[in-house]
């Protein structure tokens, strides 16, 4: 038996805004964008990095009743806004270059690239508050 990670999910406050951010600012590709009227206009929206076709992130709208009661929905919205709903960890082979490129597209970093024992690390947030880390992992074998 074996399995692979195919898709992981992020809660977002606004799918259009999130889509614009992850494609135009971060530079990811849309993998899937399908709205299903028979499921109360549920929209399956996924994005992923170019060159890594088998992994995607679902940008999931926080649903209302009957899927999620109002109070829980409010709690989830609040948790995301407070930055406690999870993190996406991206790796890159050149953190400084990625920082320059993303900044030039208007992406605001919360942490500029910094040397850490494990590599060069930086971070930003999506409009909803989800944290994204962008790390150039140190290859210990090259030392």
């Amino acid at each position, binding site marked *: 038996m074996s399995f692979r990670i195919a898709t992981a999910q992020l809660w977002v*406050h*606004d799918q*259009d*805004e999130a889509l614009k951010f992850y494609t135009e600012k971060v530079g990811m590709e849309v993998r899937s964008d399908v709205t299903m009227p028979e499921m109360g206009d549920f929209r399956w929206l996924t994005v992923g990095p170019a060159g890594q076709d088998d992994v995607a992130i679902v940008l999931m709208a926080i649903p209302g009743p009957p899927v999620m009661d109002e109070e829980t929905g409010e709690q989830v*919205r*609040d948790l*995301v*806004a*407070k*930055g406690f709903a999870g993190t996406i960890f991206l790796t890159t082979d050149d953190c400084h270059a990625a920082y320059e490129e993303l900044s030039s597209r208007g992406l605001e*970093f*919360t*942490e*500029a690239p910094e040397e850490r*024992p494990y590599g060069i690390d930086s971070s930003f*947030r999506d*409009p*909803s*508050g989800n944290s994204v880390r962008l790390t150039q992992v*140190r290859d*210990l074998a090259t*030392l």
Partner: protein
Amino acid sequence: MAFVPPARHLLRAKDLADARYFEPLGVDDLARAAGLSRAHFSREFRRAFGESPHAYLLTRRLERAAALLRTTDRSVADVCLSVGLQSIGSFTTSFTRTFGVSPTAYRASFPPASRYALVPSCVMRVYGRPQRRTFREDSAAAAL
């Protein structure tokens, strides 16, 4: 225009504290980042994150200071200034109250920073090579 939960603005202030703790940043700057008056901001921040913005900023600075004490050989005064604090006296007091030991004692309780420095092997080979010690050649050279 998408609906933005109020906490998202507070998170901007928290991110600012995390990102620019090393600058002379204060609660007023954090309130400005959140777009709120100082009094309202402090109240809302505490309600969202369970501690005052002042406490958050100070503990962020102390956390970074502790890391610098563990991973560098910089002086305590330098560490204090590197995390955006101006007074060595208040830094030492806050640090001791928070960690239970003074900055110097805290540092002494960890292995020396040099142990964790990932110095490339080529540098170690060049700088670590001992000077050759001999007897006759040296005295012969000295006699010249």
